[in-house]
Structures are given as C-alpha cells and as structure tokens.
C-alpha cells in the first residue's frame, strides 16, 4: 500500500486536527498497538520483557516528561533523575504509610508530589535561562540524591538505605509475572503518551512553545511567563515522577540509594536529543536507540569473535552517545522524529518528486 493522502479530503477542522490525519498512519498505529498488545505477549520471553521492553517503555515515559520541558518549553533540565527519585520514593512512602491507598492512586499522587518538587526547582527559571538554568537543575539533582540517601525517614530507616517495593496490586489485579508487568506498563505509558500529545497540541502546548521560541514576544501577546514555565515544570515533573514510580515498583522492584543518579538525567536528555526535541514520537525512538546500543555492543562483537570487556562496552557506549549527540545537533536537531517525517514527506510524492 502506498503512502498517499491524495483522495483523503478533510471536510471539517475536527478531521484535520486528529492526531493522525492520514489514513495510512492510523492503520500503522493500529498495527503497532495490536502487535504490542497481542503478538508480543504471545511470543516474547521473560528476558525480553524485563531487560528490554519494560525499561524501554518506562524510560520513554520519563523522556516524554523531559521533552515537555526541554523540547516544548525550551527550559533545559539536568535534574530528571532526581524527579524520578521523588516519584519513586513518594510512591513508596505513600504505600507504606497509607495502607488502604490503591497502588494506581499512589502512583498518581507520587506524580503530583514530583510536580510540586518540579515547581519548586522551576522557580529559578523565571529569572534565569539556558545554562544558568541547567546549573540550577543540577542543584535539584544533587540535593534530591542526598535527601533520599541521608534522611532515614524516606527509606523507613532501613539500615542499608535500600527499598523493597510492595506487591503490585492494581485494583485487585496482582501484577506479578513479567508479562503482566509489561502489559500494565504498556497501558499506563500509552495513556500518558496520549495525554501528553493532547496537551502539546492544545492551548497549553502553544503557550509552552511560544515561551520556547521567543519568551519576550510570548509575554507581549499575553502569556504569563510564570504560569507558562511553572506549568511546564509541573507537568514535566509529573510525567517524570510517574515514570520514576514505575521504574522503582515495576522495573527494579527493589532499589538502592542513588538508583536515580545524574547519569539517568543525562541518559534521558540524550534520548530526547537523539529522538527529537519537541516530538512525542521522538521520545520512543530515542529511548529505543539508547536501549539498543548496549545490546548491540554486547552481542555483535561476541558474535564476530572479538568479545569486549564490560568496561569497554560502557566506554564505547559513552563514545557512541557522545558522537550521536553532536551528530544530531549538527545534522538534524529534531532527531529521528524529524528524519522520519522527512522520509514520509518524500514517500508522499514518490516516485515523482516534481
């Protein structure tokens, strides 16, 4: 089937404003959903779930959160790992201290607590921009790292500071096997991705983008920088906090202090740069790329008969990510997502480009 929009006329603005206005896209998305919901559970192994799919989905969600802030609102953050930690520890403490609280509600509340933390550390963005703000968000990262490592209350005074997440009880559905965990994560992430898409294509999304593109002009057309920036910090941190709670509860199960260190922040930043700043699709593409590179480095040299040491793999990883970041910033600052849409544009007029 060719990728064409010829013959698909839009007769109302409503039709034109769908997320996927072109029929072929809708079919493709339906296919992906079908594969994710039906084919994967039929075929996948536990390894695939726990080592690849679940972390991929959760990190995609965190990347969406970060992209809202960086890609849509233009406020750089190096503290994403810290806000994930807030989500994870908040969910843990909510479950621990309020026993009757259903888990999904606890996760949402944890997201809200992360949002509050985001607002708090977003306040400096009202006065500072760019790299000044980056340093301010580093303050958040290091402070939060310290808070959860050193203040015993947050870890319920466990001697080692490590935390074991409670059983995952989603309104009576005990999420236990890797497949169930995968499905639960998939549903949550899909819903949140939809919410994110709705937000960025509506009023609030335009407010953020206006601030990103030219904050002075945005103020002159009536946008309050205070509400625009802080709402971006809040929504972003909410997503990141939920992702953090999922990371702790679903993926890790139990975690040590510093499981959400600054390297996590950088990893997420790389995902959105490589995937595409200002694109929800790009978050998934970037997360997939970041997940796949270490796997390839693990498997391919071994298959070729030149196995790399673990240290070498992590060094190569760092080098590849570094090069990719610079490469994308030079060639295509909108990342894989933009390459993808360019490909689609070419495909539309193929084979007669003129």
């Amino acid at each position, binding site marked *: 089937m060719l990728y064409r929009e010829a013959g698909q006329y839009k007769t109302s*603005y*409503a039709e034109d*404003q769908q997320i996927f206005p072109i029929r072929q896209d809708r079919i493709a998305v339906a296919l992906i959903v079908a594969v994710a919901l039906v084919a994967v559970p039929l075929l996948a192994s536990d390894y695939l779930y726990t080592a690849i799919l679940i972390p991929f989905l959760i990190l995609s969600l965190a990347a969406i959160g970060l992209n809202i802030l960086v890609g849509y609102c233009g406020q750089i953050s190096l503290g994403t790992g810290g806000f994930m930690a807030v989500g994870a520890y908040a969910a843990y403490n909510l479950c621990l201290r309020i026993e009757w609280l259903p888990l999904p509600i606890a996760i949402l509340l944890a997201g809200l607590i992360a949002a509050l933390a985001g607002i708090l550390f977003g306040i400096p963005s009202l006065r500072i921009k760019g790299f000044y703000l980056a340093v301010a968000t580093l303050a958040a990262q290091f402070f939060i790292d310290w808070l959860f490592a050193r203040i015993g209350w947050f870890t319920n005074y466990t001697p080692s500071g490590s935390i074991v997440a409670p059983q995952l009880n989603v309104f009576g559905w005990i999420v236990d096997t890797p497949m169930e965990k995968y499905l639960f994560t998939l549903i949550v992430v899909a819903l949140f991705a939809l*919410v994110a898409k*709705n*937000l960025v*294509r*509506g*009023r*609030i999304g*335009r*407010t953020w*983008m*206006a601030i*990103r*593109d*030219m904050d*002075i*002009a*945005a*103020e*002159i*057309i*009536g*946008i*309050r*920088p205070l509400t625009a920036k802080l*709402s971006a910090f809040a*929504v972003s941190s909410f997503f990141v906090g939920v992702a953090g709670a999922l990371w702790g509860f679903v993926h890790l199960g139990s975690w040590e202090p510093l499981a959400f260190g600054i390297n996590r922040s950088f990893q997420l930043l790389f995902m959105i740069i490589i995937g595409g700043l*200002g694109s929800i699709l790009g978050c998934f593409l970037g997360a997939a790329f970041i997940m796949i590179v270490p796997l390839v480095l693990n498997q391919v040299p071994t298959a070729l008969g030149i196995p790399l040491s673990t240290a070498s793999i992590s060094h190569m990883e760092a080098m590849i990510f570094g090069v990719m970041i610079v490469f994308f910033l030079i060639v295509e600052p909108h990342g894989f997502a933009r390459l993808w849409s360019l490909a689609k544009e070419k495909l539309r007029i193929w084979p007669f480009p003129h």
Partner: protein
Amino acid sequence: MSARRRPIGDTLLVVDGVSLSFGGVKALTDVSFDIREHEILAIIGPNGAGKSSMLNCINGFYHPSAGAITFRGVKRAQMRPHEAAMQGIARTFQNIALFKGMSTLDNIMTGRLLKMKVGLAGQAVHLGPARAEELAHRAFCERIIDFLEIQAVRKTPVGRLPYGLQKRVELGRALAAEPTLLLLDEPMAGMNLEEKQDMCRFILDVNDEFGTTICLIEHDMGVVMDISDRVVVLEYGRKIAEGTPDVVRANQAVIDAYLGVAH
C-alpha cells in the same frame, strides 16, 4: 479618504508627559498625545527618535521614568506586557517576533490564548469542551487566514516563510486577539511596492471592518500620508508636531527635521 463605517470617537489612550531613559541616555522626553477610538494614528520621525520606545511604553514592555499612560480611562503606573495584552492591546514588531518553530496556524492560534478557558485536565482528555473550544478558535483563525490570504502556508513552520508572509502572519497573530488597540511597528519595512499595497489594504480593512484603533510607525511617507487620520512626529525623543497629514506636511519644524532631509 472614503467615508468610514465607524466615525472617530472619544479618546482611547492618553500619553501624558512620558519620559524614558536608559542609564544616562534619554529615549523619550515629556511626550504627550492621545489616540482616539477607531482612528489610524501614525508616529513618524527619524531613526532613533524614540518611536519604538514609545510603543514599548504603551504595551508595558518599558516602564516610563516619568509621566503616565491612561488606557480606556484607567491610569497605570507599572504594567507587565501580558497585562496590557489582557486589556486589549496587541502589537507587531519591527524585527519580526514570530514563534519560528511553530506553524502559521499555531502562531495565529497563540493570539487566541487569552480567550481559551478550558483547564489543564480538560485539555489532557481533549474531548467535549476542550475539543469544542479548540475548533471554535480554529474557525476564527481560519477567517483571519482567509482575510490575509495565507491559506497555502497554513501548516508551514513560519521560520521557512519569506519575509513578506512572515509580516502578514504576525499581523494575523495580533488580529486573532481581537484587540481594541493595535500597535504596528514598521509593518511595511523591507517590502516591495506590491507587498506594501497589500499591507495597506489589510490595515485599512481591519480598521474599517472591525473598528480596530491602530497606532503605527512607518518610514514610507507616502503610506503614512495616505492611510493615517493623524500623525505624531518625534525627534530626539521629543514631540515636534501633531495633526492631520496635511497639517504635519506643512509644518516647518517637520520639514526641517525630517521631510526636508528625506525628500
């Protein structure tokens, strides 16, 4: 000038003794004039006369060091630009200030932001009220797009548009806010004759159809004399003349300061 649908009415905005200085440099000194409902007022003057600074004071971007501005009978001391926008003042800029990463349509939709009310949760779900609101405003913006004849570039990121079209999109964004007072900072700078004629037509149509009061800065004397009802002349931050185009044209100080040199 042809008879207009809405006669010039009462005073809309009063600039009273406004002075502005940056460090030691005086950009404006004791400038007073008023803008009346439904009129087109032009501010002219040589480069560096303080014209843009005057507009920046009116829409709250700069705060006058002395004097006061009264809009619709409300006198204000310090006001942030977004507050001016909420009161119904919209503007365009000398160096285009569009949101370059967004499409033409999205840029114009940002002009409607103040009129959209659905909350965050509603937008997240994007059903019912949020959707209805979005569509209603889309319809309004499409009317502006039709009016400015930019249908073909509706979905193009504005960063890729040629200069003349960007100027139109910027006007469209200001119009989308349905302003009471529209400030235009050199709307025709850098345009060729044909583009200028189009822009003049848009300005006159806006004034005539919506009754929008317009205050514009322009260098092209032909344009100024043709479309404005009254003219204020600034030089070195001071007002040196004010009146109808004919009166200003005949004013000796103006001829010396400006027209005499330019023509």
